[in-house]
């Protein structure tokens, strides 16, 4: 009984710690694919940001060096930036008129 509780706690610690300290290559691939898809959508709207591109490059570089934590973090940043650029392009479809000289 005592034994199994200790085991449970240990298992819990491992389970809790794993995602925080070691992202896998698979995690990176998922995160990167999501970022790339969003950036592609921004490209279709003709509104990519240089900072998104830089974050994507950084993610790839980190993954190549085996630093998957960093690679996942950069991918997430790229995805957030790409989504912001999509939001910008979409809202500007109407909002550009705000500044128009009439």
């Amino acid at each position, binding site marked *: 009984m005592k034994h199994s509780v200790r085991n449970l706690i240990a298992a819990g610690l491992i389970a809790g710690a794993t995602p925080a300290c070691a992202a896998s290559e698979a995690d990176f691939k998922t995160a990167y694919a999501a970022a790339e898809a969003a950036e592609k959508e921004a490209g279709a709207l*003709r*509104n*990519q*940001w*240089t*900072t998104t*591109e830089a974050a994507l490059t950084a993610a790839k570089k980190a993954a190549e060096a085996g630093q998957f934590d960093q690679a996942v973090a950069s991918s997430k940043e790229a995805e957030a*930036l790409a989504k*912001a*650029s999509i939001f*910008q*392009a979409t809202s*500007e479809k109407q*909002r*550009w*008129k*705000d*500044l*128009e*000289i*009439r």
Partner: protein
Amino acid sequence: MIMRLAISFVSAALVLAALAAQPAIAADTPNPVADAKAFQKFFTNKFPQLKPEDFANGPYSMNEDLHRQWEEKEQFPPYEFALETGKQMFATPFKNGKTYGDCFPNQGIGIRQDYPYFDEREGKVITLELALNRCREANGELPFSYVKDEMASLTAYMAFTSRGKPFDIKIPDDPRALEAYQKGKEYFYTRRGQLNFSCATCHVQEPGERIRAEILAPALGILNAMPIYRSEWSGMGTISRRFTTCNSQIRGVPLSPQDEEYRDLEYYLSYVSNGLPISGPGARP
């Protein structure tokens, strides 16, 4: 008394109705003539001390110190070498014996103010830079880079032969031409890049103000001085170069030079500067 009030009420309502009816039509269909008038009025109101032709000299008309520097510089302009190279290039025949002049009306002399124009056959806007590369390709030569030296030299010479001629951009009676104009206008006012700037953010809201060490040019007349020698670039730059670097400066990935968006933008910006003289090639800090 009550009667008078009632009359004025009725007439006020009539005026309101008339006001409401007019913009409803105007808002839906683009009206380039009204746009250009409002655009020019906005800038002449903002800078009442300037003559219309002063706008073609951009920041030099906005700041007294800069103006003095410019007057000195114009005695020995930094674009002189490019201008001379352009003149030579223009006169040198291609391998097949034809010249640039053969591709253009009036042998290419004094025609800068007519570009860009809307080609009704193609349904697209044709800029001078695009026409020059098409001319090269039609004569079996490789196209030049749109942003670099050769293209800037050629356009510098063509602008020089057109100095003083007012921009004369036409929008033919073709729905596609009006659409290209409208798209260009939309591009001009659309915010983009991580810094969330549109062309108008700098060149409509803030002309005459500083951005870091530079003085921002007004959008009115901004293309009249192209191509330019920029001290910052220590070299010449074309309209394509200006558009793409503007985009990357606001952290947007630039489109390819002479993509349709840029051509439409050039069409719009040139049209609203109609009547202002060509002053290119220019020099900018």
